[in-house]
């Protein structure tokens, strides 16, 4: 099954959510509430744990009725969908999540049926795989670069554009000297944090529109 494209893994997980009439609010709403308050920036759990390019968590309430003459039908469970586009080997990735952000994982998945907790690595990996769906067709625009490689390249791109713009017309000796210094400086700087917007950026989001 094509879960991989190049070195990128397309992980799809559907975890049935506990249906407990006595729970208030219901488990699905508790997941939604937790996710709504979770940071999507550099302190996101997925920025703290290694290997995630893009990921989403979605509470899937039901299947969708498309209208007559199709039949109306409903799911017995609600499901938590975890869609991740991540680096490399699945076991390593899941282990990385369990090692780095066990509290977040537990806070989210404790509302799911049969979740063993992240403390028991083997049980956690086994559980996630039991909930995994195989991807039928997977597309990745860039499939040969890891998260750190892309973060580094984006930083380099910004720095290079600035360097070129500020060294137009420099004589050859100065250019060479400055370039060597520039490259050394760039190498010495830490990688940008995953999930960060870069300096001085604000985020605006809205609905759908042209």
């Amino acid at each position: 099954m094509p879960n991989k494209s190049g070195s990128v893994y397309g992980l799809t997980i559907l975890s049935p959510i506990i249906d407990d009439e006595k729970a208030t609010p219901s488990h699905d709403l508790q997941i939604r509430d937790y996710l709504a308050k979770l940071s999507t920036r550099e302190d996101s759990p997925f920025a703290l744990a290694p290997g995630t390019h893009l990921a989403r968590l979605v509470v899937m309430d039901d299947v969708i009725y498309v209208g007559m003459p199709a039949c109306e039908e409903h799911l017995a469970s609600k499901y938590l969908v975890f869609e991740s586009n991540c680096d490399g080997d699945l076991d390593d990735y899941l282990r990385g999540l369990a090692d780095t952000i066990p509290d977040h994982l537990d806070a989210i998945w404790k509302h799911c049926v049969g979740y063993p907790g992240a403390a028991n690595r083997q049980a956690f990996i086994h559980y996630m795989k039991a909930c995994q769906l195989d991807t039928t067709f997977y597309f990745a625009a860039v499939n040969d670069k890891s998260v750190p490689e892309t973060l580094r390249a984006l930083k380099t791109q910004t720095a290079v554009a600035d360097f070129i713009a500020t060294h137009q017309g420099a004589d050859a000796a100065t250019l060479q000297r400055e370039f060597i210094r520039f490259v050394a400086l760039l190498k010495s700087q830490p990688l940008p944090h995953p999930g960060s917007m870069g300096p001085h950026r604000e985020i605006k989001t809205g609905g759908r529109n042209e």
Partner: protein
Amino acid sequence: MSNINGKVYAMNAITPMKPWKTWILRGFFFLLGHIKPLQKDLIDLSFIEFARWVVLPRKQFPFLGNGQINEDLKYDYLLFFSNFNGTWNQYIDAFSAVLSKGLNLVWRWSEKFPGSVPVTSFKEYIARVQFDTDYYYTAYPHATANDIKSAHIVQSSLDQLTLRAEQCSPQQFADAYLRFVLQVQSHIGETGEAPIAG
């Protein structure tokens, strides 16, 4: 919930299929996956970072026991997850304008699919079968697929120039530097905030 994070949009869609049709769709995806030229249009569209289709047969919903009730369904389901740049309308418009045949082959097995042309009924269908994202993370909210591809070109060009920067004479360096600038000159657009969605 938010379907948007920086420059990416998360789309989720689920559509019902009569189970016998699922096999035809699997066959189509098998071909698409193994004949690379068929994927060319997806690559050329250049605003999709990652996308996947998952065929979910009605008897293969994850079942964990522990009191979970078995699903009892008539349809198989097709799940679609996309991470794209730009606006929802732009995305669907582009799909309809240039990938209509391919999309029809993907979704025509789903109930009530109206076809990807004309675009308004296609949009209505997608909007109906779309469900919203509770939590969306990207490591690169300030970058699009194009930005990322460009950044890697700049990185590899820089690495090449760096290898020889210290060994050559200033004049040799100046020549190599000009070639470097020519390599990267159409790949140094700024990254940053996305335009606001209305």
